[in-house]
């Protein structure tokens, strides 16, 4: 058997290298994700507040989900490369089976080769995964405390189990095919309206109709935005129909324009449908995640910017650590307040701002009360803020529930225990600040002060400083804080987003490489029939662009839904006046990257068949 193993290793050298590279990439991805996930897990253990816990658990869950989906998609690359290696050894496989070697013995040869490849891939992959993680951690400045021994032993085990299962299943499927009939009975990848496909499409249409009906009837509520996510299922189920319709549309265009090359290209897409579907899903998934998350963050940041910019009217806010007597600094163009830092609530630094009705009358800021939490009116609030006996407090609306209204909030200000009663919630204008509004009179009373202030809101464009040793924030400073702090801790998710994009690109390149390899005979024959190299290039390149285009279109639609749902689920709609923002430059750039890479790689990979040696390829294939 050792001699047979040596003979086996002599064939398919190029494909072996590609397969080892795929194994390495796979373990790099597993190691990286494992370190990211364990990193988050550590954060959970050290977490103090329930809010933080929920946030980290949400990020952890989505990271695990994304990791699993990416690794599953990546198995496709390994399967196709292994298939290609196995098929390139068809003569060897058939001959030794005819010599009497059992199927299990043939598998043992492949298993031996698999183990030898893993001995190279695993150490190299684990080290690369670690290095990759450290680099990313350093570049994005997030904590790298997740570096632990767990990922050192877990990733090789996961890699070995997943890869072994993938290879074993693929081997069993391949070995079922009769080697003699392989030339005639090729696997049918052509798009046909099979019963399974028809049923899948009907289910998709039914879900589409039901979802659309529900979306129309319950427009505006939280459920509405959750329901929108059902369109992901609809899009996935109706992908075949969308492909078919685009293909037919292209076919009509080809007839109108008398473009035979276009028709041949569409027939090629149709004929390779089963093979291309996995890549399409990966492109859809990666575009939806990357463009969707980016749009989500852009929209949230813009909403935070707009909220501060549109609802804050003072030109600057001045604060000092020393209390000042209001009678000595009174200025008609300035609104004064008392401002204290309270102990943290979860991870939030709580700011208590005591003001009177002048804060509203002089329009320092718009105070938007959430009517879903309490029915407090502006008039009532103005009256309450002037009342030194009003112990109410207005919290940022996202931090309280209706059941919290009327409950006490005890805290310590300036070393004194103070008790407030939660009266309502407002939509903060500065998203980056956890600020609660109270009556200045009440604050003075409980803290034993009279006519003292430490905060001044300057209303005019020109103003003079109210306090000595104070710090001043202009309106634009506040707007910037709101914008910058609106979406935090997204660096890591952004890295994962780019990794998914890279995975999609690797899959696409892998597909193009395999098509160039497997179709070299077809390409050579097209050339021999008299089709120019340009026409052959067009046939194949249009096929790749066609796949990218359809997948991209669905991906962008999914991204928009993801962003729309996400924004409305995490932020109240009153913030989203500017609508959903999508960076079309990024979308276009991404499309160009996918397309240009496809074009360049195909032209390079198919150069021998298309340009140089098509006659030699025909001769080689006829002699096989």
């Amino acid at each position, binding site marked *: 058997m050792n001699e047979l193993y040596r003979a086996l290793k002599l064939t398919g050298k190029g494909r072996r290298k590609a397969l080892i590279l795929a194994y390495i990439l796979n373990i790099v991805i597993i190691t990286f994700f494992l370190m990211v996930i364990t990193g988050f897990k550590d954060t959970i253990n050290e977490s103090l507040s329930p809010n933080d816990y929920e946030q980290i658990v949400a990020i952890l869950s989505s990271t695990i989900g994304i990791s699993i989906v990416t690794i599953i998609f990546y198995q496709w690359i390994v399967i196709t490369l292994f298939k290609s290696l196995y098929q390139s050894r068809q003569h060897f496989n058939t001959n030794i089976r005819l010599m009497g070697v059992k199927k299990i013995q043939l598998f043992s040869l492949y298993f031996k080769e698999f183990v030898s490849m893993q001995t190279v891939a695993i150490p190299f992959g684990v080290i690369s995964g670690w290095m990759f993680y450290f680099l990313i951690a350093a570049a994005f400045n997030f904590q790298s405390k997740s570096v632990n021994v767990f990922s050192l032993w877990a990733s090789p085990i996961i890699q070995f189990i997943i890869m072994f299962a993938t290879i074993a299943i693929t081997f069993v499927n391949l070995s079922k095919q009769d080697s003699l009939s392989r030339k005639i*009975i090729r696997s049918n990848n052509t798009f046909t309206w099979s019963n399974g496909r028809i049923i899948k499409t009907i289910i998709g249409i039914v879900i589409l109709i039901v979802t659309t009906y529900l979306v129309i009837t319950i427009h505006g509520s939280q459920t509405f935005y959750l329901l929108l996510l059902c369109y992901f299922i609809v899009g996935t189920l109706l992908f075949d129909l969308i492909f078919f319709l685009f293909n037919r549309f292209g076919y009509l265009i080809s007839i109108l324009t008398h473009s035979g090359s276009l028709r041949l290209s569409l027939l090629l897409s149709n*004929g390779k449908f089963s093979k291309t579907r996995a890549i399409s899903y990966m492109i859809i998934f990666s575009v939806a995640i990357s463009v969707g998350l980016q749009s989500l963050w852009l929209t949230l940041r813009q909403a935070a910017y707009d909220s501060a910019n549109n609802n804050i009217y003072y030109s600057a806010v001045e604060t000092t650590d020393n209390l000042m007597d209001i009678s000595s600094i009174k200025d008609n163009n300035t609104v004064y307040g008392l401002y204290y830092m309270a102990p943290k609530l979860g991870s939030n630094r709580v700011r208590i701002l005591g003001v009177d009705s002048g804060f509203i009358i002089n329009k320092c800021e718009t105070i938007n009360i959430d009517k879903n939490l309490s029915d407090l009116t502006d008039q009532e609030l103005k009256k309450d803020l002037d009342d030194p006996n009003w112990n109410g407090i207005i919290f940022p609306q996202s931090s309280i529930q209706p059941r919290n209204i009327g409950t006490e909030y005890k805290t310590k200000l300036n070393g004194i225990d103070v008790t407030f009663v939660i009266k309502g919630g407002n939509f903060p204008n500065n998203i980056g600040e956890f600020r609660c509004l109270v009556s200045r009179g009440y604050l003075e009373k409980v803290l034993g002060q009279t006519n003292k202030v430490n905060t001044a809101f300057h209303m005019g464009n020109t103003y003079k400083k109210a306090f000595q040793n104070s710090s001043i924030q202009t309106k634009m400073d506040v707007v910037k804080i709101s914008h910058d702090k609106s979406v935090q801790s997204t660096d890591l998710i952004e890295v994962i987003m780019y990794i998914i994009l890279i995975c999609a690109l690797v899959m696409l390149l892998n597909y193009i490489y395999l098509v160039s390899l497997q179709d070299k005979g077809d390409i050579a024959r097209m050339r021999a*029939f008299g089709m120019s190299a340009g026409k052959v290039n067009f046939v194949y390149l249009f096929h790749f662009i066609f796949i990218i285009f359809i997948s991209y279109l669905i991906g962008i639609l999914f991204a928009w839904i993801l962003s729309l749902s996400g924004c409305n689920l995490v932020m109240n709609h009153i913030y989203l006046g500017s609508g959903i923002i999508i960076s079309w430059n990024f979308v276009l750039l991404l499309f160009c990257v996918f397309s240009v890479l496809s074009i360049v790689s195909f032209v390079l990979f198919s150069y021998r068949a298309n340009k140089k040696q098509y006659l030699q390829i025909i001769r080689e294939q006829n002699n096989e």
Partner: protein
Amino acid sequence: MKAVVKLLNVTYKIQDGNEMKPILNNVSHLFPAENLSVISGPSGSGKTTLLYAISGLLDHLDNGSISVNDTNIYSLKEHQKDTFRLNNISMIFQSLNLFPFLNVQENICVPVYAKNKNVTAETKKKISYYLDKMGLGQIQKKALGVLSGGEQQRVAIIRAIIDEPALILCDEPTACLDRENSVIFLENIKTLITDTKLTAIIVSHDATVEQYADHLVELSDGKIL
């Protein structure tokens, strides 16, 4: 359209170690139109190379000229050679002639697509006629996987003649076929020559093929005997 193929002092050499070895050695011959010409000879005699030379697939000739209907193929530029081949010559190879991602009708229509023409009702009628004539039945929508090697070779013939070329070149077309299918193939070619006035040149060392030849050429060591 009639096709007359003229070879004049054709020499083609390949690199063999340090020296240039002639595969075709000063070959001159005239292949008559509307005939089934068969080029036979032992392995390595240069049969296939001669066929590729006639089709214009070789990148150059070391000496001489080949003309099809008075067009000197090797005086044409590369893209002109492609166009000439597309419009005048059809080829049938030993095996793997068809594109696995296309069904029968789509495979037959490849020359039509390649010429940027639409598949008309007339073309479809022709396909139907030839499928019947070759005993294949109405299998237009069938995938290649369900066809035998002989059936695939007959589909390849229909593809070769569907757009009415002047010349069909076949490289060992019966090598993968059993005797029965070889006879069907040759009968079909002969009928087509009568029906459409085309010229066919077949390279083969199969004795059955030689029996069907109107014009037999024997090649040995790159020379016509």
